[in-house]
């Protein structure tokens, strides 16, 4: 809703400041199996609209429908370099709740569940609660979450959406 309407619901709204959507080839038609070009395009659109860089984003929910999907997502979004850096980020604790870039503090799709149509809404709810400091025991404590990102893909990455959220 518009910002002035949001203010009628709450004194502490979260604003969508960037959004991107892209579609891409079927898996077998892609030049690469280790990234999702549609997600890269969607992220680029969202970053440009929001006028922020990947390093400005504090936390993110990404569509980890399979283990490899989170590794690919955090590279596609520009948080970590594609390859070893992205592949080892979780193991090295960089993406945990007290890491430098908390990813999927909700548990992600593979942990909290993936009810397909509701998955994206659940991701946004997590971002909303985290940014307002209302995430309870899952709350990221050691940073001011003024900027967060949500990443979602459909099928095997033939479509992708990315939103960037700001708490003003």
């Amino acid at each position, binding site marked *: 809703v518009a910002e002035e309407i949001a203010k009628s619901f709450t004194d502490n709204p979260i604003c969508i400041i960037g959004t991107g959507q892209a579609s891409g*080839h*079927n*898996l*077998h*038609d892609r030049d690469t*199996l280790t990234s999702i070009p549609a997600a890269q395009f969607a992220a680029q659109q969202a970053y440009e609209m929001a006028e922020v860089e990947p390093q400005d984003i504090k936390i993110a929910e990404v569509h980890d429908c399979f283990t490899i999907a989170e590794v690919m997502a955090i590279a596609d979004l520009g948080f970590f370099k594609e390859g070893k850096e992205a592949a080892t980020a979780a193991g090295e604790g960089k993406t945990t709740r007290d890491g430098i870039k908390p990813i999927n503090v909700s548990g992600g799709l593979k942990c909290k569940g993936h009810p397909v149509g509701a998955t994206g809404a659940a991701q946004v709810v997590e971002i909303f609660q985290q940014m307002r400091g209302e995430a309870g025991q899952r709350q990221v404590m050691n940073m001011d979450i003024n900027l967060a990102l949500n990443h979602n893909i459909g099928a095997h990455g033939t479509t992708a959406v990315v939103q960037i959220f700001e708490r003003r």
Partner: protein
Amino acid sequence: MKEIPFTIASFDNFLKEKKLMASKCQQCSALWLPPRPICPTCKSHQMEWVELSGRGKLVAFTVIGVGPMPMIDAGYNRDNPYCAGIVEVEEGPRISAQILGVDVARPENIRIGTPLTADFVERGSWHFVDELAKMKKMYLAFRV
């Protein structure tokens, strides 16, 4: 063959006749497998059907122990896994399919680049409605 729409339904009908058919863009000559009604490269609507040779090579694969329902119904499980792969046909385009005739017990011995030929396998399809899921359908596969 212009009257046959360039859809997955048409592609499936050709599979029933054991034909591997692609759509070819008459403007830029790009081949699309499965067929596309609009060329993703040049956006032309001028397509024609072409039959492919069925020869190709393996470009990526995985061996699956816990498959979707139609594969479980076809008898695949952890003790009897199957290979799924991406095949590049000799005319150029790529397609995903089950790969037959490889040693699924030893995936480390399956080689990228292995020559393959098209095969056609009948099994049930995936559907929320059980009765519809039981209906047999012809699927594309590739065999060593």
